[in-house]
């Protein structure tokens, strides 16, 4: 199978990007270096080509019912222009993918964004379920013909406002508007995957160069910085922090219960989640801070004394904090904040502590408290 390339591939190549294979796409991993790009987003603004993300459009009289059936959050509660983070489960309650659902501001239809490589799978899943429900909807995979760019950082709104016909500053978090940027018609959503304010912009893929060129004074950022940014913010990565094959997890284990609306009549995976909720999950996602030298990586084992507790799913040296941080799953009996554990790095056990997974708050003194710990709905799409 050959890798797909985004419309901006040559633009990235000309900018000196290094590339990586991600979800079947050859995407930029970095331009100026991960640390530089990461700092740009934390301190000012950066721009990401995330055209590898899937886009699926759902229309028709039964669109809301089908969306509610196949995702965990309350789609019926969305007002026109609203966006919502959600999970897509199988019958066992295991997360197949996470997604952001956008209700278009000006039409009775939805756009949802599965992760890279999941566009076709989700289009098929929606079509199949719609047929079995005898639902009146049309499902269209728009992955190839929609471009998606994220502009993120404390200066992102100002940066976009300088080129947009309508003020983005007036658009609330997790809301969208249609406007034009330069001459390109866009759907602008105040969502992101970095822990910073910012937008994600959908547009006709044929206009990619024009849209990207509008922001040619903004630091381009690759998937490398996207990963360190989301990890510092405690946001999960589909295919790594959960995956139906390699890391099967329910939203309860992944601490994504806040996107599950148990009051809905029915949704795929509901019964399995209800059963797990009765006993409580056996393992839970936690944030981990290494107290010794080392860099935690996916697959590293976690211990408490001699007891095997779980494993790391994502880890890095935090560029903002200069501290080794990780997400991982541990035995639910030892998952509370402050628990002293160890991460095995190349055969050696490095002391570590379980901390709030929003590391910028829990380690960075950003004023976060444990009561607000865990993912929340301030961030949207992910890789």
């Amino acid at each position, binding site marked *: 199978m050959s890798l797909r390339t985004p419309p901006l591939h040559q633009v990235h190549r000309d900018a000196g990007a290094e590339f990586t294979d991600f979800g079947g796409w050859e995407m930029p*991993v*970095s331009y100026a*270096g*991960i*640390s530089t790009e990461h700092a740009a987003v934390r301190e000012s603004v950066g721009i990401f080509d995330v055209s590898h993300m899937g886009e699926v459009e759902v229309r028709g009289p039964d669109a809301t019912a089908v969306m509610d059936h196949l995702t965990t959050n309350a789609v019926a509660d969305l007002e026109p222009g609203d966006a919502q983070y959600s999970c897509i489960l199988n019958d066992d309650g295991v997360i197949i993918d996470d997604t952001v659902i956008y209700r278009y501001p000006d039409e009775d239809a939805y756009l949802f964004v599965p992760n890279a490589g999941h566009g076709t799978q989700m289009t098929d899943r929606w079509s199949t379920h719609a047929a079995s429900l005898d639902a009146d909807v049309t499902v269209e995979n728009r992955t190839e013909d929609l471009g998606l760019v994220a502009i993120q950082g404390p200066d992102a709104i100002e940066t976009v406002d300088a080129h947009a016909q309508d003020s983005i500053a007036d658009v609330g978090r997790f809301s969208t508007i249609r406007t034009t940027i330069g001459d390109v018609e866009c759907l602008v959503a105040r969502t992101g995957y970095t822990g910073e304010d910012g937008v994600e912009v959908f547009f006709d893929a044929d206009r990619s160069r024009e849209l990207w060129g509008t922001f040619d004074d903004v630091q381009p950022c690759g998937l*490398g910085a996207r990963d*360190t940014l989301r990890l510092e913010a405690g946001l999960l990565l589909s295919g790594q922090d959960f995956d139906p094959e390699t890391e099967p997890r329910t939203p309860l284990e992944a601490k994504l219960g806040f996107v599950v609306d148990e009051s809905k009549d029915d949704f795929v995976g509901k019964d399995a989640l209800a059963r797990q909720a009765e006993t409580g999950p056996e393992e839970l996602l936690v944030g981990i801070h290494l107290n010794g*030298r*080392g*860099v935690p*990586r996916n697959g590293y084992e976690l211990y408490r004394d001699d007891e095997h507790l779980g494993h790391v799913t994502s880890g*890095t*040296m935090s*560029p903002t904090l200069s501290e*080794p941080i990780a997400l991982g799953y541990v035995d639910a009996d030892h998952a509370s904040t402050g628990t002293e554990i160890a991460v095995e790095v*190349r055969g050696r056990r490095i002391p570590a502590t379980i901390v709030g997974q929003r590391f910028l708050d829990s380690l960075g003194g950003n004023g976060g408290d444990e009561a607000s710990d865990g993912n929340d709905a301030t961030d949207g799409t992910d890789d």
Partner: protein
Amino acid sequence: MSFDVPSDRRYLESHEWTTTDDPIRIGISAFAQDELGDVVFVELPDVGESIAAGETFGVVESIKAVSDLYAPISGEVTAVNEDLFNAPELVNEDPYGEGWMIEIDPDDDAAFEDLLSADEYREQIE
């Protein structure tokens, strides 16, 4: 892009360099640090440990990759660049200078002949 390859030292195909006059220092090349990207962690042997030519003596990690370090020659470690523990970015900033990793007392002074010359190494990375 063309990378600096000082001609006063010898190289391994795996991108480590060694000086050939005292003190015998070992590090990684400008090409290698660029390939790795931002170096965030370096694991090195202790003073007094022996390292063997062609065997791993440590690990260098960037944000995106973990790489073993291979010893160009055999010997006993006489010094370790502890500055790298708090400032691993020195490997990126000055790979042939302040980014050095260890000093050794070589077992066999003739062993340098087995390594790549600067010209041979340059050919490999170009």
